[in-house]
């Protein structure tokens, strides 16, 4: 059954006004592009997830379990590369950003629709090259590609470097597109102080993407050149500096963690408002802290290098600046919780993920403060404590926000409701599984288990077993979500235009929206998420 025929008006939606394969592949509709990205990033998540399970199974016993050391080293690299470059960086901006940002602004399209289509294909090409590298021989450098190991490793590092390099262009294009769209295509009534906070978050992210990604591109090309042509940039026997790579890499990759986390924070803001029926507490503070993070994030890269031989004074500066980033995150956490104060809270599935998000971000953020404390980081650097820290904060927040967004905007995107009960079971499984997976890793780090270890001292075994058990729960939760979401596409209840009674601007359009988003140009006459008005928004 077609979702739109069930509504009162049988209007064409973006999904069914054209149905040929060609109309999808050559579409310039930001909503279809968002859906294409969604499919691609979910495939990346699946691939990365399979690698993750292989790693966890290998670590069940202290010695070899199911594979040899070389395979293990490749698998952890492929896990990291896939998850970071193919899933976490593009997931929320490219999939949900593309879908809802123009809707939230009251625009018909993004500023450069053709470039937008190009960004899908560039991403797909980069991902294909990366996967080709994996299948061909698979790098064993870790997702960080540290030199001089990466320039001397016998594995196929080059195709993977180039794949990531190509994906970078997709990121830059998407960023430019969002910046321009936000500046030029806002509907009447939307001045800067009314822009939804998700848009602010995407906007801040785009700025980082446009500024930082070229540095990554450069350093990847330099590594590739050093591998292929033997240029002496990082290799000390040719007069290069091995640590130079780390500076350049983290100059991008530290801000990159905010490329991942800021959009996640934007999603959380939207969902908290919708399910608490409240305007956001401290709109300006949240928008300002987004830019605070984006800015200070550029000056804290050195905290990855406290034991690399950089100057003691330099470490101090980077440590202090990291504390500033932490405080911007703290502001947001306070504001989300404060938003619930005096609200009308409905604990639906997206809000469950928000709670998971807040828990993981608080804990991950506090451990971030702990590792930014230079003396403590000497013990923790490159151990499982760091692995747990960045999974909590980076993976935890991206994953939770991705799932929150998926559930919150599912009716918007496909016009169907998912089964609430199954979804709650899955959400609880995932949050619990996540904690069981990564909490033991903090303790393993304390014990001194280095990261990227194929074998470990036997007294560390039971914590590893616990972690693997948690990972299995996680996998189960994902399986469940996959099942009921696919089921709901066909059999789910048809959704009303605004199933959550949200006052977010994106619900001014029909669900799913028509091919041109709005039947008549919307006007934004109130603030976003203004719940002092009791009626749901009128669909334009």
């Amino acid at each position, binding site marked *: 059954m077609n979702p739109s025929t069930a509504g009162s008006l049988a209007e064409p939606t973006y999904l069914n006004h054209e149905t040929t394969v060609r109309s999808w592949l050559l579409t310039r509709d930001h909503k279809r592009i968002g859906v294409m990205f969604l499919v691609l990033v979910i495939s990346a998540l699946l691939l990365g997830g399979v690698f993750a399970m292989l790693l966890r199974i290998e670590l069940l*016993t*202290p*010695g070899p379990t199911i594979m040899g050391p*070389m395979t293990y*080293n490749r698998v952890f690299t492929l896990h990291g590369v896939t998850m970071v470059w193919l899933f976490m960086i593009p997931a929320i901006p490219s999939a949900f950003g593309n879908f809802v940002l123009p809707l939230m602004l009251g625009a018909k399209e993004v500023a450069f629709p053709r470039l937008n289509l190009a960004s899908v294909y560039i991403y797909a090409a980069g991902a294909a090259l990366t996967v080709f590298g994996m299948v061909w021989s698979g790098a*064993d450098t*870790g997702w960080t590609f540290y030199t*001089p*190991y990466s320039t*001397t*490793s016998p594995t196929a590092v080059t195709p993977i470097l180039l794949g990531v390099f190509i994906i970078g262009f997709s990121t830059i294009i998407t960023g430019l597109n969002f910046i321009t769209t936000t500046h030029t295509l806002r509907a009447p009534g939307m001045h800067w102080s009314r822009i939804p906070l998700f848009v602010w978050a995407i906007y801040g992210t785009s700025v980082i993407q446009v500024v930082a990604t070229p540095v990554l591109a450069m350093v990847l090309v330099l590594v590739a050149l050093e591998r292929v042509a033997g240029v002496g940039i990082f290799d*000390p*026997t*040719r*007069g290069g500096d*091995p640590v130079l790579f780390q500076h350049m890499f983290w100059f991008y990759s530290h801000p990159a963690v905010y490329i991942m986390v800021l959009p996640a924070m934007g999603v959380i803001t939207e969902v908290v408002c919708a399910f*608490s*029926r409240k*305007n956001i*507490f401290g709109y300006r*503070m949240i928008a300002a802290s987004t830019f605070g993070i984006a800015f200070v994030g550029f000056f804290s890269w050195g905290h990855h290098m406290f*034991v*690399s031989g950089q100057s*003691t004074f330099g470490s*101090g500066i980077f440590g202090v600046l990291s*504390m*500033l980033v932490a*405080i911007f995150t*703290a*502001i947001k956490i306070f504001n989300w*919780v404060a938003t*619930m*104060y*005096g*609200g*009308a*809270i409905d604990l639906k599935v997206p809000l469950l993920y928000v*709670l998971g998000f807040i*828990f993981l971000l*608080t*804990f991950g953020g*506090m451990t971030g*403060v702990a590792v*930014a*404390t*230079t*003396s403590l980081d*000497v*013990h923790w650097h*490159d151990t499982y404590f760091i692995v747990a820290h960045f999974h909590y904060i980076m993976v935890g927040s991206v994953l939770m926000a991705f799932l929150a967004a998926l559930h919150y905007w599912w009716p918007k995107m496909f016009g169907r409701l998912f089964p609430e009960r199954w979804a709650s079971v899955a959400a609880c499984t995932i949050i619990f599984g996540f904690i069981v997976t990564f909490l033991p890793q903090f*303790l393993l780090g*304390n014990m*001194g288990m280095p990261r990227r*270890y*194929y*074998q470990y*001292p*036997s007294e560390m075994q039971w914590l590893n077993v616990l972690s693997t058990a948690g990972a299995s729960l996680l996998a189960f939760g994902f399986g469940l979500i996959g099942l009921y979401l696919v089921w709901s596409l066909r059999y789910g209840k048809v959704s009303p235009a605004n199933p959550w009674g949200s006052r977010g601007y994106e619900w001014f359009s029909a669900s799913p929206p028509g091919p041109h988003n709005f039947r008549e140009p919307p006007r934004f006459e109130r603030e976003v998420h203004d*719940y*002092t008005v009791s009626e749901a928004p009128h669909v334009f």
Partner: protein
Amino acid sequence: MNEFFRQVLFLPEQASTFARDVDHLHYVIISTAMVVATLIFGLAGFFLIRYRRRSESQATRKVQTSLGWEVLFVGSPLAVFLAWFFIGYHDFVWMQTPPPEAMDVYVVAKQWMWKFTYPEGPNAIGVLRVPVGRPVRLLLTSRDVIHSFYVPAFRVKQDALPGAYTQTWFEVTRPGRYRVMCTEYCGLKHSEMWAEVVALSPEDYAAWLREQRAGPVALRDATPGAAERDEPLVPARLAMEYSAEAPHGELMTAERGTLAERGERVAAEKGCLRCHTVDGTAHIGPTWWGLYRREERLEGGGTVVADEAYLTESMMKPQVKQVEGYALVMPSFQGQLDAAEVAALIEYIRTLRGARRDDIRPGGPVYEPIDGR
């Protein structure tokens, strides 16, 4: 209290002078994190119940912030974070600054083994013997890729870089055997790149050194001292259950004589002595006599203290910091000298010191008095 927290947090034993202080800050931060997370969560839970939705059409009022609250919310955690940071940084500076009386050991990392060389002669693969109660400075380098020297029980870690020297130090507080691991991914056997620190009482250590000096050269590699032989502890490396063959990787060949003697041989073989003298007379290049820790005037202004870092740099990139008054004729020894040879040269240069300043002709570099050692 210390012991309680240490066990709850699964921290390894505290066997160095830093360990306790570092751990105390750890306890404070982690406990605060737990308390804060609980409070935030408790508050969210309370709101969830107190403000649950009662009807579908329920409207809410707008809550606006006052500046005072915002400042409080932002200011107080920031103050706490910065306080932690400064306490931690104080310890960090301590951990980064080897005391001048420390004994030196050169550490060369290589896929996938650790080699320790003492200035007095013996060298050992996989076992670092140190006396308890005396600061030990490690001068680390690598022969291939980046490795990282990590002793969990000491809370010490430092990267070993190819083509450069880094340093760290520790002082062991009680005799025992402590696990050393590599924490920077370095290829196939990264997770097997283990070694151990054997901390001996000062008497046992002295006895071991005596034995090393007396024994034939062939035995100078990693021979356990009498104290260890009497007390058959299982080395940390063997305590693992999986069978990792030991030693990991190929053996490095042992060298004859003390490190400084080796340095002298290297200097002659590689042609350093064609330009540098070792007795204070100026020649094509600056003399090595008293060079270590001397302040050198540089071409184009500025000075530099000739420490290990500078000496290495001068061998690898002589053009970067050129001493005033000398032509740039020194070739780069990048790729000509391996890490062990660099260590030997530095050790040799360090033995060349004394007060023969009167021999030196004016006009060349200015030699400042040598402070410290």
